[in-house]
């Protein structure tokens, strides 16, 4: 089937679906064997140590100061390493982790409700729909208790009971109370704790902090990660920074969808640049979609706001039965003209079905023409626009009748206020409107048990790695993972790598440094010189529409193939027609965004290829070809119980799939059912 005149990507033998190649399976993820409970202890014991006097001679670059990066920087600084930390915001305290609301899990069993390390491990593996690693998840559960101790010692003001002890709540459908929280601002308080520990090390001189610096390239010399190229976002200077090891704690890539609950600057660039230099990308198509966000209100919207899932405990979800009622005042729609669709389809769980099911069901109602709220222009993938209503009602009228307005206000008042500020509607009077939104990405750079990527010396922590969440992350577990990685795991595993350091100093004119530097300058120059007619945001919006439509909640072979073609065309058009004004030597926000969108345009294609190859439904990833008779997600453990680790195939070449088999020795794989 090979033809000589086919343009790149060349179709050749071994191409699957015409899109990717299969490579060698991943032989070893470095997890120690033996009883699950002993693996982490064992690994810590076997890791080589670095003597304190030598640590001063060694340097580590950390990119990102969210929970994962700031905690790692502080801890490695305390240990005496020379740490340089980079982030794109003006202060380390503003990393996206600041926005997390709900809470952080830990197996403390403070409630004496039979919680344990094993139960947290078990719930997390099951919540990940059996697509996460047992060893990693167990370690996460094991370390979780120490995170709370650490945070409390730093002065994080968690909620407390009258007796002065910490309070817990239950979260995301688990049956124990293991979630620690600080009002609705847990991420903020945890990050401020880590940020303060970080600033303490800056004062001590072990950590040097680089605000408004964006990593644009990784330096790999003689097979090892040895540094990064960054752009000083104020002066435009392209700087080289070298070290003995590099850590990426750069967060998730949900912004590939344009509209998401992520901070505006969240991006994939650091991870993507590393991927292009040889780091495998694990499970890129795994995206978590959160059911309770405030819906899109207009075509100029820049982001979506999450509202706590706890609202589903008392609110009832419905849409009008008759599409003709969709623009009516909901209070005038009589009871028998309403479709409480979750209660109808899932009588056992009703409005409390898991995130993926609630999200998907809302989409189906709206696709069916029964969505509510303002009709907004939605750009269709073919470029045309269509008017659609993207919202379902979350109604508290019954709850207010049952508990009284003041009880509802005491429980949910701050969320109601936030809703009112954003929508201008009073949710005590008119039902709220909600719609799913992209929230969290479970995929990320592939790492082994030591959090090391396939590039020696490149470590990846927090949401930027793929490791602990499987296909469907549970609430309150991302904060836990970020801090577990940064405070406890990485500081132990990285020693083993650094035991061979310090490595020979790289001269600035080393070919690997020169190449990385030149590639960044060229790219920046190229973006500024296209001088086309379309704004960066217009490309981003269009990419987002394609991703949401075809690689979002519901994916099909046909749709994904179409999306891949559209993304390729869009990418080509981007480089031909994007308009970025100004120059490099100044604060240039359009240039920053352009670089990020260029990387999203490449990642988007890989996400679709990954989604296409995984012909099963798991967690939030629903393949329409793989469903049970009554329309539920159908996993295929026989063929897909593996991590998909993608290797960059080269510019215009097909990516290479490496499979890491997942083995479950301690948890039995079961089909989920919520009926």
């Amino acid at each position, binding site marked *: 089937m090979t033809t000589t005149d086919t343009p790149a990507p060349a179709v050749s033998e071994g191409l699957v679906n015409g899109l990717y190649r299969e490579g060698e399976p991943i032989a070893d993820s470095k997890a120690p064997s033996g009883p699950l409970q002993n693996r982490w202890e064992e690994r810590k014991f076997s890791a080589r140590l670095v003597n304190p006097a030598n640590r001063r001679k060694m340097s580590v670059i950390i990119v990102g100061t969210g929970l994962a990066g700031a905690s790692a920087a502080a801890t490695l600084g*305390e240990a005496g390493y020379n740490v340089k930390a980079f982030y794109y915001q003006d202060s380390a305290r503003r990393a996206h982790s600041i926005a997390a609301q709900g809470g952080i899990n830990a197996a403390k069993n403070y409630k004496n409700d039979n919680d344990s390390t094993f139960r947290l491990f078990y719930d997390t593996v099951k919540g990940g729909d059996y697509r996460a690693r047992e060893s990693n998840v167990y370690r996460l559960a094991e370390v979780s208790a120490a995170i709370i101790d650490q945070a409390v010692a730093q*002065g994080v003001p968690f909620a407390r009971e009258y007796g002065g002890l910490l309070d817990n709540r239950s979260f995301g459908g688990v049956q124990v109370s293991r979630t620690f929280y600080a009002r609705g601002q847990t991420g903020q308080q945890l990050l401020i704790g880590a940020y303060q520990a970080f*600033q303490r090390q800056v004062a001590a001189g072990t950590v040097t902090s680089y*605000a408004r610096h964006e990593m644009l390239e990784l330096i790999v010399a003689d097979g090892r990660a040895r540094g990064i190229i960054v752009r000083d976002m104020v002066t435009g200077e392209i700087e080289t920074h070298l070290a003995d090891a590099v850590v990426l704690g750069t967060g998730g890539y949900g912004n590939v969808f344009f509209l998401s609950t992520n901070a*505006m600057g969240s991006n994939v660039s650091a991870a993507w640049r590393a991927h292009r230099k040889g780091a495998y990308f694990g499970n890129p198509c795994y995206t978590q979609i959160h059911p309770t966000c405030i819906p899109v209100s207009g075509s100029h919207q*820049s982001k979506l706001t999450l509202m706590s899932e706890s609202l589903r405990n008392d609110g009832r979800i419905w849409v009008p039965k008759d599409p003709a009622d969709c623009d009516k005042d909901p209070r005038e729609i009589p009871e028998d003209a309403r479709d409480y669709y979750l209660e109808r389809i899932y009588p056992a769980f009703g409005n409390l079905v898991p995130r993926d099911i609630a999200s998907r069901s809302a989409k189906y109602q709206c696709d069916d023409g029964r969505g509510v709220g303002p009709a907004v222009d939605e750009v269709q993938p073919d470029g045309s626009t269509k008017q659609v209503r993207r919202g379902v009602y979350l109604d508290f009228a019954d709850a207010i009748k049952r508990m009284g307005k003041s009880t509802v206000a005491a429980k949910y008042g701050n969320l109601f206020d936030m809703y009112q500020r954003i929508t201008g509607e009073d949710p005590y009077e008119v039902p709220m409107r909600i719609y799913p939104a992209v929230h969290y990405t479970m995929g990320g750079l592939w790492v082994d048990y030591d959090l090391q990527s396939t590039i020696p010396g490149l470590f990846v922590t927090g949401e930027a790695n793929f490791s602990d969440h499987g296909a469907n992350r549970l609430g309150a577990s991302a904060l836990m993972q970020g801090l577990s990685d940064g405070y406890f795991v990485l500081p132990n595993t990285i020693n083993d790598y650094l035991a061979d350091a310090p490595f020979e100093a790289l001269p600035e004119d080393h070919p690997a440094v020169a190449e990385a530097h030149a590639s960044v300058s060229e790219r920046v120059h190229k973006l500024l010189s296209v001088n086309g007619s379309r*704004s960066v945001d217009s490309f981003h919006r269009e990419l987002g529409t394609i991703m949401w439509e075809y690689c979002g909640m519901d994916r099909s072979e046909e749709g994904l193939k179409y999306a891949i073609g559209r993304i390729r065309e869009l990418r080509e058009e981007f480089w031909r027609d994007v308009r970025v004004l100004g120059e490099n030597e100044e604060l240039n926000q359009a240039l920053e965004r352009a670089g990020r969108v260029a990387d999203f345009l490449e990642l988007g294609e890989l996400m679709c290829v990954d989604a296409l190859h995984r012909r099963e439904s798991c967690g939030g990833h629903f393949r329409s070809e793989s469903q049970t008779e009554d329309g539920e997600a159908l996993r295929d453990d026989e063929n897909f119980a593996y991590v998909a680790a993608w290797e960059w195939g080269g510019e215009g070449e097909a990516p290479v799939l490496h499979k890491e088999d997942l083995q479950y020795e301690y948890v039995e794989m079961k089909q989920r059912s919520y009926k």
Partner: protein
Amino acid sequence: MKITLKVMRQTGPSAEPRLVQYELMGISGDMSFLEMLDVLNEELTERGEDPVAFDSDCREGICGMCGIVIDGEAHGPERTTVCQLHMRSFKDGDVITLEPWRASAFPVIKDLVVDRSSFDRIIQAGGYISVNTGAAPDAHATPVPKEDSDRAFEAAACIGCGACVAACPNASSMLFTAAKVAHLGLLPQGQPEREARVVNMLQQQDAEGFGGCTNIGECAAVCPKEIPLDVISTLNRDLGKALAGRG
């Protein structure tokens, strides 16, 4: 709606600021203030004019990154962050003036973007509890009265936006510093370093060029996180003790 914007523009740190006027049509009340600026920037890009630089990231009122003086008020007419201010707070035909935070300790970088790294240096001077990772006792080892913990939380809610400085006629950062001093000082874990903390943080605050606090209270009036003014009295009490101890 139709809106007229007068934006204080400055091409770089040492450039002269100048007020530039823009007309915008078709603004909807559902847009946030920053989304309205996104629309302006799309239009400017189309016309080939340099877009207006402004800071934002979370757009949820929690990261503290956004900050604009709107019609003379830090974060504008409502007590919230600019990213949570919506255009429905304005009327068709309004003329709105935008300026960056003004304070010598917050130098302007470009247009509405300022450098707030002085806040980080105040924290470096002692706004933390010294505890190394892994050295912490069990979280239940020291009970904390709920009331103290709630008050500590209230002070800890500061997002470091700098509106307090922008609103203060003396450009004082006292509310920001005092919020941190109160947060840590209200908790048992913060006691050992309590006195040194307040002295060192205040010294740094002066060194950064922030003005003195003369109890005007404009800071608390604009603070989007409603940090109470009485954190400043807590700070003053701690300072008194620290100085007496030294004397």
